[in-house]
């Protein structure tokens, strides 16, 4: 058991699916029935029309993740499932921070704040300002701790999105899934025996 615990690490599961009502539930059940917590879940349309892409992050051993992926891939509307460790993906989370414009203008060197945290201003209004940062958890957490003393009004962070380093994407794989409709048989030399009737100039 202890061995299994130490084997656990974050895995990024990428699922390509049809856009189908209820499928999120079908996929979620695969985790919940095994009492596995989903750390992060993002779902959005992919680059391919009508196909959606899920990014799911869980902390588990590779053996468990492999079995889960096979169960997910078994679902009728799931096209393909991949899993990767954090080293194998480039990943980002986006965070938004809302603070009082007055306080910020008065007490903080905004320029330094933005530069040091790689943040940008999304909205600047008389009553409040919204900042945005993108990065790993520590990076987005950092700005929270800086803004908290100045009265952080609201904070939100997105789920993780991840791009697989060693992958050609799904475009080529999709062609395997689309049935290759056989073209009409080419009738060779159909007109040859009709001679001049066809080929007369």
């Amino acid at each position: 058991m202890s061995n299994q615990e130490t084997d656990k690490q974050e895995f990024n599961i990428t699922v390509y699916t049809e856009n189908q009502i209820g499928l999120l539930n079908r996929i979620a059940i695969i985790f919940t029935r095994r009492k596995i917590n989903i750390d992060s879940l993002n779902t959005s349309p992919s680059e391919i029309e009508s196909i959606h892409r899920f990014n799911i992050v869980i902390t588990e051993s590779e053996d468990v993740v492999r079995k889960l992926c096979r169960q997910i891939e078994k679902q009728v509307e799931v096209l393909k499932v991949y899993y990767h460790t954090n080293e194998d993906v480039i990943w980002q989370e986006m965070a938004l921070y809302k603070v009082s414009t007055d306080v910020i203008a008065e007490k903080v060197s905004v320029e330094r704040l933005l530069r040091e945290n790689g943040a940008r201003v999304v909205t600047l209004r008389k009553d409040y300002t919204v900042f945005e940062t993108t990065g790993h958890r520590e990076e987005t957490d950092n700005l929270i701790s800086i803004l908290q003393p100045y009265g952080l009004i609201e904070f939100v962070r997105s789920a993780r999105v991840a791009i697989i380093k060693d992958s050609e994407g799904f475009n080529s794989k999709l062609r395997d899934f689309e049935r290759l409709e056989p073209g009409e048989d080419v009738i060779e030399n159909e007109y040859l025996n009709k001679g001049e009737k066809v080929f007369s100039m």
Partner: protein
Amino acid sequence: MEVAQETLTAPAAKEAVELSGSQALLDALIIEGVDTIFGYPGGAIMPIYDALYDYKEKLNHILVRHEQGGIHAGQGYARTSGKVGVVFATSGPGATNLVTGLADAQIDSTPLVCITGQVFAHLLGTDAFQETDVINITTPVTKWNYQVTDANEIPEVIAKAFYIAKSGRPGPVLIDITKNAQIQKFDYKGYTKCDHIRSYRPKPIVRPQYIKEAAELINSAKKPFIIWGQGVILGSAEQEFKTFVEKSGIPAAWTILGAGAIPTDHPQNVGMLGMHGNYGPNVLTNECDVLIAIGMRFDDRVTGRLDKYAKQAKVIHLDIDPAEIDKNVKSTVPVWGDCKETLPLLTALVEQKEHTDWLKLFNEYTQKEYDAVIHEELNPSTAEMTMGEVIKQLNQLTKGDAVIVTDVGQHQMVACRYANLNKSRSNVTSGGLGTMGFALPAAIGAKFGAQQRDVIAIIGDGGFQMTLQELGTIMQTGVEVKIIILNNRFLGMVRQWQELFNERRYSFVDIQSPDFVAVAAAYGIKGKMIDDRKDLQAALKEMMEHKGSFLLEVMVTKENNVFPMVPQGCSVSEIRLK
């Protein structure tokens, strides 16, 4: 109406016809080759039943007494016929009553299409009368489900439902149709059967290099051992399997759902695996050097303790479902694919052999088991009858040709251990879910699925009382089912565990039963009760020769145990003979 019906049942009408959703549904069923539907009407499915009134000649609807009975009948039908079982139920309680059967069909890979009525689409989510969220309730127990809210969806969705239910690893599909979609008229442009879904791969691609590796392992093995499951039957690969077994000369044992794929008396059939399986195959699983698992999923009732299961063996696992490979037992060579396709490829590469000494070892264990358990079970020295001797006498009458439907418990284990099965699709039982109350309705369905065969339901006194209302279905349809109740006045299997593992603390297993023969008589079914061995043979003969259904209650010894047994949490080689 009569005229319209003729045109709408023509496959793929090119000209659009105006039909209701209900008519399109029934039309689809006819084109899919459905002849029998098990169901129970109600408010939310009334438009479909109204349309069914005009289809009475083409679709035989069996009115069951409870939706659970309906779905178990659908399972029985599917298991004996090899076709898709079709079940109708209304919304709310009708649909929730299907859940047990769906779970049973899901775990036993039984192809079903269940149609449930649903409240009007505009009422969804309002806690309307008899509304339940059927899609979410049934998601974990279906291979696929879908809610139809517009009649235009019906032809395509039903086509997908049948394709998904029967292709690849089969399973139950549920289609929930709102009442407005059943009533709605739409331009019906004909029905096209589905044979492809972009995201669905029913059969994995066969990889020749694994077949080659598997054959090399088999050819170099000294003590190879085949274990097979229902995949052989579901894939209609009985002949391919037999050829493989006979050419390779390897002893073969079966899981409970694999029973009958090759005849019981085949010389290489060495018996049943698992908790109450035979002694030899269980012990020798931990002695073989190559274990060839075909269409089976290493259920915990088969493997016992996984960390002590066949650790010495190289494992070759043939399965159509990639998720089964390495799920419980790590395989050395995975052979993904439909065994109807993979087995002939394997057979071609396997050397013709006879593993005489190794097979002899199984026979020695069989003899040991016979002396310790089987002889006494089949030829008891006590005055009271045993379950085993009933099955033995029955074998003599059926000659192994009957369909045996069993419920769940001691009688199930005894029947599966001792019943002779000559033909495939002869064993209908609830394997994975262990559903008490399964056998009576499943036997009704099994008879509709195999009308030329004798169907014998073997049921315990506990399980029978879970669904005995289906005697009403027998009464009304006149279906011929032979029912044997093996009555030990206990919930026998629980009692056995309490005796062995809970110091005989018989907590709520002493069950009283009504006069079953009188109950049957109330439904117009002939019956008989016997409690003396001298009446057994004649009573069984009377039952089999009787035209129509018959209930035979046999009073058997109260505290008899099913042995051998692999106690839970033990290794298969720790199987107990006593």
